[in-house]
């Protein structure tokens, strides 16, 4: 017989709590301005911004990846830190549609 002592929580089981509906605002990334530097990714307290590869371009004969920030709206609490720290001002906080009157 196997007895487990205490409560056991599986790694990353917090993911079942979707915190996306907490905030009133959502960050919108302007893909034209985003340079894919990853600053927002290192600052996001909810781990819901990721810089992902969206394509490739050729610069001076070398193939360079194009990276853009992508927001996971399932977990974003709308704190606005990403918009604050973005060096290219590519992120704007927008009021969610359900709060618009």
């Amino acid at each position, binding site marked *: 017989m196997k007895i487990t002592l205490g409560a056991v929580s599986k790694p990353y089981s917090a993911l079942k709590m979707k915190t996306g509906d907490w905030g009133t605002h959502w960050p919108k990334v302007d893909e034209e301005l985003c340079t894919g530097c990853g600053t927002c990714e*290192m600052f996001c307290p909810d*781990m819901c911004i990721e810089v992902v590869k969206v394509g490739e371009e050729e610069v001076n004969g070398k193939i360079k990846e194009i990276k853009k920030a992508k927001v996971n709206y399932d977990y974003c609490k709308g704190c606005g830190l990403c918009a604050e720290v973005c060096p290219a001002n590519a992120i704007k906080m927008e009021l969610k549609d359900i709060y618009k009157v």
Partner: protein
Amino acid sequence: MKFFFSSGHGACPGCSLPIAVKNVLYALEGKCFVVNPTGCLEIISSQYDRSAWGVPYIHSVFENAAAVAAGIDAALKALGRKDEGHVVVFAGDGATADIGIGCLSGMFDRNHDVLYICLDNEAYQNTGNQQSGLTPPGSNTTTTPAGKILPGKIGRKKDMVAFALAHKIPYVATASVAYPNDIRRKVKRAVEFEGAKYIQILCPCVTGWGINSNETIKVARLAVETALYPIVEYENGELVRVRKIKERKPVEEYLKIQRRFRHLFKHPKGREIIEELQRIADENAKRFGLDE
């Protein structure tokens, strides 16, 4: 899961604790055993049946995080499993400077191979902003309320860096969440040393400090730029690096955007406290040579 700390935790929007934690875990590439005493971080990351952690995690009571970490270190040594990861403690300022200071001193004294990280939000923010040893003077908390006579906390912020240095441990540093690259570099440097390591990270609290959720980084940066929170690094007891400040700002700039200090601008004794804080900042700047 790049950061070994997942979304879905219960922190307030804009909380800076996850920023510090994710950068530390990212720097260690998840190779660590985390000990976490009671505090905000425990409440937000390990609610019943919901764990945000992707690394081995143990919650201890308030006073004994350092002792639990020392035990893990001793067990890893005895079992010959030292290469599996570093022992890391994430403790709040109350657990570090007030309640857990006895066990912490013992751990430093025995020089266990533990990285002790103090997430300094300058009060017991989990229970609603009670003053701790690391609360700065003049701060309005529920146990040091600003009233007709007293202008918030009387006394000074405890110098935990000096406390750690007095134990002659190999690595002591301070950091701020406004500079995550600095946090990652310091963590990587710290684990190169064998023995007890202490890093204190300034983590502004949205609700306790009374700031907007998007201002935590700005406030953390202002604390450094006013020299109220000097970023220093000691290796084997010697000051090796400080973060220089280009143009030092007056402390008012840091104080006026926080609700916990707003009484200082109208209280009859407020001016005195502001001058004292400015004197502390000047002292820091002189002592560590912060001005460029």
